[in-house]
């Protein structure tokens, strides 16, 4: 029983004192002021649910007792598939209280076909071998029978909040270096990786990040970010839980249908911090009616942190131009480079609240040809703009490494390698993937970038990944779906990202060879079928699908489709796909061909 005293993390000037004196995330929660509001779950003006830290702890304790009755024990893995909300957060903490290892997976949206959902869940389920898979009451019956269960796994529906007896929390004493929970990366079956994180790593990350962000006891976070994503889970749930901050939450689908609600909530609740993927800025600038803009008061917003998608100057400028009259502070827009493998942030731009992140204009040709960021004095010509992602967090080191594994000097583009004291324990049950990703204690990110004056600029990706509105999608998953169509030549498919300047995010473009020329006469029907297959399996809509005759796709020397070269060929034939001047989606990807 650890809930014996209330420990205040507050100092006299309201700034939090880091490092916080907790060994585990649970110690932090149980030390929170019980009367302080923790989660404000907003659905509509007349439908807001608020729980204090004390009430939340009671809910989690009740869930823990229920799960204990379901034979969940310390060390067991438990998969949570529930919609965004307090019940999901309570179930996550309930698992931690028992010393079990929770992993949150995306809630299936209605587009997913039951038979395909089985495949989607099978990868995570077989790798984690969970004792329990917990779904909510509304989880569709037609999907239940497709949830793949291992020999020792059981599926249970989560009880409604407040329907189980509440007893005080009694967390199991666990080793803070053991795996506490698992975050999943992108991908379906073979590509899915479970990032195993310890309490120690999570608390170190929060201590470093909290200090850099100059967190105050009065900070209040706003979030629409899903909890299966590191930005939603760490920055907008665990960080406020550990630092005893309030967080205003809404679901991603509600936000996307009414983006203005984000501005209304920041205004109404005086939120001071929010994390967002880049496209959000453009979405807010373009999709909120102009007459509404002046009705929002964003003066409370200390930092709106652009993270988890490439940070684009054009998106930031568009937002600043749209909301300059809404009392937005001059330095409110900030940036961050983060990944689940380091718990969350690797770098963070300054938090002095006065200036936006640094920008540099560099010659695109210099980048492409020599992989050198030659700073341009002029914004004309072939100059492209990069926004700084800031400096390393304390306890974190970066290297920029060439294809040959040599350290590169400032201004040279190479792969970003990271060493941090908040690193993953490993990919759960996948020592092969762990040893592939880690070399001599350095995590090879697969991202490309350069450093200038100690700041990191991310330029693109070496690994194959498409980031659609903050969601990570592996092109291999798209290619497999398209390849399985009877009229498509198996293995002769390439999927890649194209930046959509109108949306402020990447989108998926697919090019596929038909088996026989005659297939091109059925182009429209095949494209429609492929589009539906991608949506129902991955939940994302491709921007375009191009069907080409046999032998159109460029092959690499190894005989496989060459993504970068095929992409360039397609862009040459279809100028309508042009990602736009001043935008460089990747530098150096040709190494992958």
């Amino acid at each position, binding site marked *: 029983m650890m809930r014996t005293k209330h420990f205040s993390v507050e100092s006299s000037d309201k700034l939090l004192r880091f490092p916080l004196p907790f060994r585990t995330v649970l110690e932090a929660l149980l030390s929170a002021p019980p009367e302080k509001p923790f989660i404000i779950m*907003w*659905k*509509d*003006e007349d*439908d807001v649910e608020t729980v204090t830290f004390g009430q939340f702890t009671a809910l989690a304790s009740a869930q823990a007792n229920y799960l204990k009755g379901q034979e969940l024990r310390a060390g067991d893995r438990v998969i949570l598939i529930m919609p965004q909300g307090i019940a999901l957060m309570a179930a996550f903490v309930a698992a931690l209280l028992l010393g079990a290892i929770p992993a949150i997976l995306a809630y299936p*949206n*209605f*587009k997913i076909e039951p038979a395909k959902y089985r495949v989607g869940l099978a990868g995570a389920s077989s790798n984690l071998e969970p004792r329990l898979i917990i779904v909510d009451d509304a989880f569709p019956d037609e999907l239940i029978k497709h949830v793949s269960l291992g020999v020792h796994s059981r599926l249970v529906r989560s009880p409604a909040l407040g329907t189980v007896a509440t007893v005080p929390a009694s967390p199991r004493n666990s080793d803070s270096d053991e795996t506490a929970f698992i975050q999943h990366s992108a991908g379906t079956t073979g590509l899915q990786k479970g990032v195993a994180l310890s309490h120690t790593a999570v608390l170190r990350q929060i201590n470093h990040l909290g200090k850099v962000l100059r967190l105050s006891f009065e900070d209040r976070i706003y979030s629409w970010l899903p909890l299966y994503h590191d930005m939603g889970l760490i920055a907008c749930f665990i960080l406020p839980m550990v630092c005893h901050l309030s967080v205003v939450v*809404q*679901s991603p*689908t*509600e*936000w*996307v*249908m*009414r*983006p203005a*609600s984000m501005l209304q909530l920041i205004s109404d609740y005086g939120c001071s911090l929010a994390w967002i993927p880049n*496209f959000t800025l453009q*979405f807010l600038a373009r*999709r909120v*009616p102009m007459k509404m803009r002046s009705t929002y008061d964003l003066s409370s917003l200390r930092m709106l942190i652009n993270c988890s998608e490439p940070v684009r100057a054009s998106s930031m400028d568009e937002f600043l131009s749209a909301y300059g009259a809404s009392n937005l502070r001059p330095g409110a827009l900030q940036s961050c480079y983060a990944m689940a493998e380091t718990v969350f942030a690797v770098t963070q731009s300054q938090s002095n609240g006065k200036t936006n992140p640094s920008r540099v204009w560099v010659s695109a040709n210099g980048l492409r040809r020599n992989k050198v960021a030659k700073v341009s004095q002029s914004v004309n010509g072939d100059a492209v703009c990069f926004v700084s992602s800031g400096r390393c967090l304390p306890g974190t080191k970066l290297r920029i490494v060439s294809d040959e594994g040599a350290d590169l000097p400032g201004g040279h583009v190479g792969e970003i390698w990271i060493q941090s004291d908040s690193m993953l324990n490993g990919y759960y049950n996948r020592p092969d993937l762990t040893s592939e990703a880690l070399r001599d204690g350095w995590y090879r990110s697969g991202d490309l970038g350069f450093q200038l004056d100690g700041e990191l600029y991310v330029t693109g990706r070496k690994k194959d990944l498409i980031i659609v*509105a903050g969601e990570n999608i592996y092109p291999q998953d798209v290619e497999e779906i398209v390849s399985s169509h009877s009229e498509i030549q198996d293995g002769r498919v390439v999927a890649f990202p194209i930046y959509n300047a109108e*949306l402020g995010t990447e989108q998926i473009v697919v090019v596929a060879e038909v088996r026989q020329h005659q297939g091109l006469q059925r182009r*429209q029907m095949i494209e*429609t079928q492929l*589009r*539906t297959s*991608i*949506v*129902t399996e991955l939940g994302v*809509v*491709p921007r375009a699908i191009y069907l080409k005759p046999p032998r159109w796709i460029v092959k690499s020397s190894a005989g496989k489709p060459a993504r970068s070269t095929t992409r360039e060929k397609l862009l040459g034939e279809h100028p309508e796909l042009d990602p736009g001047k001043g935008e460089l989606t990747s530098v150096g990807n040709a190494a992958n061909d």
Partner: protein
Amino acid sequence: MSETQQMIEYIVREVVRRPNVQIDENTSLVSSGLVDSLALVDIVIKLEEITHKRIPAGKVQAKDFETVQLMFSAAARVGKACS
């Protein structure tokens, strides 16, 4: 022009924006990939304009926008009269 016809024309012209695409009030929009979830905001605003009702985002889900018929049913169910 009927309300559903206004919406169909809007979706074809402003949202789908691809040649040779025809839809009716029962055409699957979201699960077919014709309409991206990022475009739902435009459809919500158009639905409010046509029905003169405010649609509370927390009371509808993406599946309520799967067809034109379903979105008008949702507006009738949860829409609030504009003041």
